[in-house]
């Protein structure tokens, strides 16, 4: 696989707002290095959601990058801003806790992610290839552009590990 890093994110995405994690973080860093997308690193997923919501209000397309456990951490902010106030955001998460994940601490992440996405009415699409990832983000932008719902793209651990191999 030879990834075109600068084209992994759709060009409409102007800024990444991230809480780094070991699966998604190095990939995001490589994309930021290769492209003109701006990068803001925050200390908590609720901050990422709120900052991205504010950017969206002012016309900037942001992409939140975080581990899927970040949905739990940001649950109240998601409920307030994206549901109650209907300010849409676009998020990309690494899929921790999917079938076969060897880490005990990740075992709840996947079904909590699914449950929270259902609870908040977050349309979700999984991506297991770079083409699927780019297309899912493009679809997410279209969806959030309706200003009706936020969108969640979930990168499989398999895709992210493959990208890691290419990084090293």
């Amino acid at each position, binding site marked *: 696989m030879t990834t075109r890093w600068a084209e992994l994110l759709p060009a409409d995405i102007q800024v990444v707002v991230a809480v780094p994690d070991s699966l998604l973080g190095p990939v995001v860093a490589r994309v930021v290095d290769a492209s003109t997308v701006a990068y*803001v690193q*925050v*200390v908590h997923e609720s901050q990422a959601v*709120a900052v*991205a919501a*504010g950017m969206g209000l002012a016309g900037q397309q942001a992409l939140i990058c975080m581990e899927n456990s970040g949905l739990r951490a940001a649950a109240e902010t998601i409920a307030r801003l994206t549901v109650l106030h209907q300010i849409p955001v676009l998020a990309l998460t690494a899929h921790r806790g999917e079938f076969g994940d060897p880490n005990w601490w990740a075992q709840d992440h996947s079904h909590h992610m699914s449950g929270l996405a259902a609870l908040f009415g977050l349309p979700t699409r999984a991506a297991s290839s770079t083409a699927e990832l780019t297309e899912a983000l493009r679809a997410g932008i279209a969806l959030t552009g309706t*200003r*009706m719902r936020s969108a969640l793209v979930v990168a499989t651990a398999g895709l992210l590990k493959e990208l890691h191999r290419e990084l090293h």
Partner: protein
Amino acid sequence: MNSTEAIGALRALLGEDVVVVSGVGRATYAALRHWPGRTLPLDALGDVLPVALGVAAALPSAARTLSVEGDGSLLFGMAGLATLATMRDRVAPFTAVVVDNGRYESGGDVASRHFPLDWAALAAAFGLGYGTADRTGAVAAALAAATSVGVLRLVVHDDTPMPPPAWSANGREAVYDFRRMLATRWGVRIPPAATKI
């Protein structure tokens, strides 16, 4: 000074042409009183500062942006100070206004803290400018001390009960109005929400 007088003093200094994101209770009451049509009132304790930072980062630097929230809201979302410090070069001029009555007025009118809080040290820990005022005549100096990116603490005493809401918009309608204001004043594009009629 009370909350409305404190924000009124700030309004007199900054004028009408600002962008405001406000939090629950007195903060929104005072902000809407002095900046109607410029304020996004959020029912989101602790999220006011980062939302305002996102707005400020996306707008031209000529847009003076404020977050206006109570001390309880800022304490609820203290991570916002880290975000403010992180984004300081992207958001100037930006002022995080804290309307400090020392109470959770909207949450049963109980104390917001049971410990002495050194606000100046708190702001300094994040490398942020800081100013404080407990009377309207001191607001100008406090705003200057808060520098171009910093925290402005307005110490207030509200002796009268908070009046019922005087505005009619709900949370989604408020967002709609705020978007329209940003489009009109700052040229923020609102894309069509559909591709087919």
